[in-house]
């Protein structure tokens, strides 16, 4: 479930990035890297888990699934937080700089 959540996040972010490419004013590219990196790593984790559990891997307990979904959504939220911090730090549109300068005037 964690893998599925991050894969969906990665696909949505890639589609959003492609829509505006080659312009990347909102730095969506960063989100793509984060989610694809995590998706690949969780995929490896899933392969090793499958090798251990075999068919049982596909029939998790509902409580376990819910916890994994909760974890996946939290991981997506953390990725968004990292992206917002990066976006505000880089300030590609110069909006923060402008807002601060306007306040001073």
């Amino acid at each position, binding site marked *: 479930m*964690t893998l599925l959540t*991050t894969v969906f996040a990665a696909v949505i972010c890639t589609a959003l990035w492609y829509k505006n490419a080659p312009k990347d004013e909102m730095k969506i590219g*960063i989100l793509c*890297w*984060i*989610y*694809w*990196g*995590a*998706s*690949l*790593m*969780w*995929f*490896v*984790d899933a*392969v*090793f888990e499958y090798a251990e559990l075999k068919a049982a891997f596909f029939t998790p307990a509902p409580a376990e699934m819910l916890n994994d979904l909760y*974890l996946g959504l*939290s*991981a997506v939220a*953390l*990725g968004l937080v*990292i992206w917002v911090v990066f976006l505000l730090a880089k300030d590609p549109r110069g909006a923060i700089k402008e807002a601060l300068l306007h306040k001073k005037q």
Partner: protein
Amino acid sequence: MACFVVPAVEAIVIAAAAKSAQVKEEKARLNGGETFTVREKIPLSRKLKWLRNMLLGGSALLAFEHVWHGEITAWFPFLTAAGNPADTAEMLHEMATVGVAMAVLVTAVWGCMLLVTDAIEKRTAKTPSGVN
């Protein structure tokens, strides 16, 4: 247990390599080494940054998962598995198998991306004035 450590270490090494490549490219540009054909290609430092971002982003989210499962603590030795020898051996085994496999897969995907970008660059170079 600590599988994310392997890609995180690789990310640090790649970040250093990307920085070094960027400095070299900057020097070459200032010395007039950059030609028209060089400008058509994506710099190595940029390509390395793709790998760094994937490894760092993935490791950060995986580290969060380990915090979620109580495998990372805020106090020494930071990894709960490092508390006793049996768990440490299991953790090292996981790093050597799952961790290495994660790093290898991410690097392999990045390698495939490089092949695709190289093909696009070659195709663009062949087309007159770079227009398809």
